[in-house]
């Protein structure tokens, strides 16, 4: 019998930060994750974490404005205010837990510049900031004796009387299925990058959390907002941090021109990510690329500087492409990187389902709107991870006994057995690749009505094959083949919401850039798209909209 006050799905930054908060409050908490916490994708965040340090007089409003401008005014400004004003303390707390942030000459936290921001307010650990923070939060979890269900895979949320009361899961190491009861569940299960191919995301980023909430009736918001990172390594798609440009790196086209001059004369390479990615794609599409890439040039920074500040990038460049960045520019291209959209929550991580919270990339509070600033994702995870944990602690006081029902585990066991019992059919990977390539093709850096309809058509085809694939491995222990099948089902849900959102939004805003409607339309589309799972609606999705919260920054034209 597994029971906890609070159960957190996901052991990355948001999940562990929430767990620390719940533990401190004295409640019983556990983390459940399909991978060991230190394998979480928070690792991959390289460049840093943004924070105005209000304790030394820095104005959080500057960061808030840059974030809102970066979001192309789609972020909810009350949420951004919370994030920006709590950012300083959130980062300082991480330092006090043990994160080895870079320092200035006085031994205080030192910054680097990052894209889309007027001030340098990004705190960092080399080019391994995410990893360095994740490992410190993991250290804290060991210190606190946190309960972790490692390599347990959640298949379904238990919803009773409209409230979330736990999960059904598979212990991958034994193959046994278990109910874990909880008075509150926080989904901190990361993004859905694998819905696209290629993507910088880890193979584990399959939108599990988004789909779990979506199936439980929670709307997914602004799912059409897909971030393409401007610098992913040629062919491999490996992320090359924005820190490369933050530290002074140039982007060059085939004739050696710093082409950002043409679109962002003030910010140059440090314009917002959507702006830089579009500029790169334009160079490539108009024949000024180098084998489908542009060049990231760090040579002028010098070997010593590169190795001290950007060591991981040098490691990746040398080992994967054999290019020494001190000697040669490295070819890069825009690559799918992050999903701004996600499970709709309020500023305390609450969803519309009582007892169900979401935080981190899977959530949409919304602080990133139509385009996330670099180094705001780590900030989002710790600020809203903490707030979700804190609110959940209060919420569970209002909940009586644990659920007694065994219905969900019965139906889940039957569903999964049926999946295993299917006759031999298509391979899961074949269906997944078809889905993901179609998504990238239709919902790219540039998109239009025809491309998005193409994505929909592709998805309809993929959905029609969902009953036809089969699981080859029938064993119990560490059956990843089964897990990939379940993940594919989650990903198709996410893809469905992305396509629906994209087809709904009749304007260009942030990452949603339509070549057939190139202007932002504040009059009609200063709105969030909300996707509900609804079998009665066209393509199984009901799309609604809601107003964006504006507090003190009226939308203006976005120039970098």
């Amino acid at each position: 019998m597994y029971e906890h006050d609070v159960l957190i799905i996901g052991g990355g930054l948001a999940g562990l930060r929430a767990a620390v908060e719940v533990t401190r409050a004295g409640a019983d908490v556990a983390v459940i994750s399909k991978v060991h916490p230190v394998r979480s994708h928070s690792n991959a965040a390289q460049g840093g974490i943004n924070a105005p340090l209000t304790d030394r007089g820095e104005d959080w409003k500057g960061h808030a404005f840059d974030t809102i401008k970066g979001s192309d005014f789609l972020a909810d400004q009350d949420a951004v205010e919370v994030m920006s004003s709590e950012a300083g303390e959130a980062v300082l707390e991480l330092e006090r837990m043990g994160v080895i942030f870079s320092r200035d000459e006085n031994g205080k936290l030192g910054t680097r510049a990052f894209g889309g921001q007027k001030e340098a307010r990004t705190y960092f650990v080399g080019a391994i900031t995410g990893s360095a923070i994740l490992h410190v939060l993991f250290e804290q979890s060991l210190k606190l004796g946190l309960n972790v269900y490692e390599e347990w895979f959640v298949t379904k949320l238990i919803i009773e009387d409209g409230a979330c009361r736990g999960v059904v899961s598979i212990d991958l190491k034994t193959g046994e299925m278990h109910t874990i009861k909880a008075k509150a569940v926080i989904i901190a299960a990361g993004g859905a990058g694998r819905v696209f191919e290629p993507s910088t995301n880890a193979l584990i980023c399959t939108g599990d959390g988004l789909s779990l909430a979506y199936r439980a009736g929670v709307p997914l918001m602004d799912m059409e907002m897909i971030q393409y990172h401007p610098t992913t390594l040629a062919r491999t798609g490996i992320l090359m941090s924005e820190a490369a440009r933050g530290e002074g790196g140039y982007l060059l086209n085939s004739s050696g021109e710093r082409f950002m001059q043409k679109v962002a004369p003030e910010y140059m390479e440090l314009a917002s990510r959507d702006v830089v990615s579009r500029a790169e794609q334009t160079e490539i599409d108009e024949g000024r690329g180098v084998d489908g890439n542009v060049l990231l040039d760090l040579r002028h920074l010098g070997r010593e500087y590169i190795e001290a500040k950007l060591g991981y990038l040098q490691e990746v460049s040398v080992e994967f492409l054999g290019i020494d960045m001190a000697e040669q520019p490295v070819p890069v291209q825009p690559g799918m990187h992050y999903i701004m959209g996600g499970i709709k929550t309020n500023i305390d991580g609450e969803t519309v389902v009582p007892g169900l919270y979401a935080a981190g990339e899977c959530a949409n509070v919304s602080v990133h709107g139509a385009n996330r600033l670099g180094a705001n994702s780590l900030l989002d995870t710790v600020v809203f991870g903490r707030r979700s944990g804190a609110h959940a602690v209060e919420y569970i006081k209002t909940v009586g006994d644990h659920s007694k029902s065994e219905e969900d585990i019965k139906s889940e066991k039957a569903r999964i057995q049926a999946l295993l019992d299917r006759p031999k059919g298509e391979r899961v990977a074949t269906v997944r690749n078809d889905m993901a390539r179609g998504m990238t093709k239709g919902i790219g850096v540039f998109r239009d009505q025809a491309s998005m309809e193409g994505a929909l058509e592709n998805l309809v085809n993929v959905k029609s094959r969902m009953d036809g694939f089969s699981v080859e491995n029938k064993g119990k222990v560490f059956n990843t083949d089964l897990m990939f099948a379940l993940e594919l089902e989650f990903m198709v849900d996410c893809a469905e919401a992305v396509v629906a959102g994209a087809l709904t939004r009749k304007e260009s805003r942030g990452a949603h850039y339509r070549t057939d409607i190139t202007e932002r339309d504040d009059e009609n589309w200063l709105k969030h798209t909300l996707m509900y799972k609804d079998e009665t609606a066209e393509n199984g999705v009901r799309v609604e909209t809601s107003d964006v919260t504006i507090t003190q920054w009226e939308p203006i034209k976005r120039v970098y």
Partner: protein
Amino acid sequence: MTDATANTMKVKLKIKRFDPAESGGKTWWQDYEVDVHPDSTVLDSLIEVREQNDGTLALRCACRASICGSCGMKVNGSAKLVCKTRVVDVAPNGEQLTIEPMGNQHVVRDLVVSLDTFFSQINRVEPYLQPSFVPESGEYTASNESMENLLTGMNCIMCGCCVSDCTVLEVDANFIGPAALAKAWRFTEDPRDSKRDERLKNLNDEDGGMWDCTRCMKCVEVCPKGVAPMDRIMELREAAIEAGNTNTSGYHHTESFYNSVKKHGRLDETRLAIDSAGWTNIPRLLDLAPIGIAAMRKGKLPPVFPHKAEDNKKVKDLYERVEDAD
């Protein structure tokens, strides 16, 4: 071999399989052949096997960018992170690659090992910052240099490659292991941590602690992140000695060695053995004696009067100059 026209290459893999469901578990070798892009990594090839060839093959992988630490396994006998191991580098002429699960850890299935060994070792070093005070607000003050120094340790992604190939763990499961010691170093070197002396003393005194490393350098060679655990262990030993931990055979061994070279320019092997065992450790000395007697009979015992380097006086002077300068 690379076929430039088809833009694919054939990769031959010989994979050690393990199925725990069979009674008592069944181990076998299975050969695979896949076509992949010529720049592919070993992981790309394994994923190709898993997705297009044999869905029953189990392995862990996530980031594909050498940062999550999931995909440690043995390639041709030594532990590697397969996502950063390019096929052309380990099989330049299309040789068959032998893939096995990591060593020194219990195999769960195929290439997946249990994480319990690794993390129970990590847990032994109280792997979290233990400061003497927490600032009411703001951060700890610390030099940038001191933080950059710790990057070497923080680069550890806990992949387990060093544990896999550790030659001491092969014979002694009680050894705390290279990863845990490197993790401990990350705290003993952190100016914000207040438990440096206790940490050093514990690792010095504990069975299976810092002195059980044989300095074989396997961990340095296989670490995919430049943590060089053995170098960290040597720094721990140096720090433990400096902090006054002089109660171990390891310390006496090092000290005796240092002084022998200082005095004679060379090594006094007899003295080294006796010093390491400890002058008062009668059982250990008796234990060494029969070997010595056997060696003497064969005419190969170390000389009772140690030979000296011709310039031993100059070596001694040099020692003194360096010691004075420090």
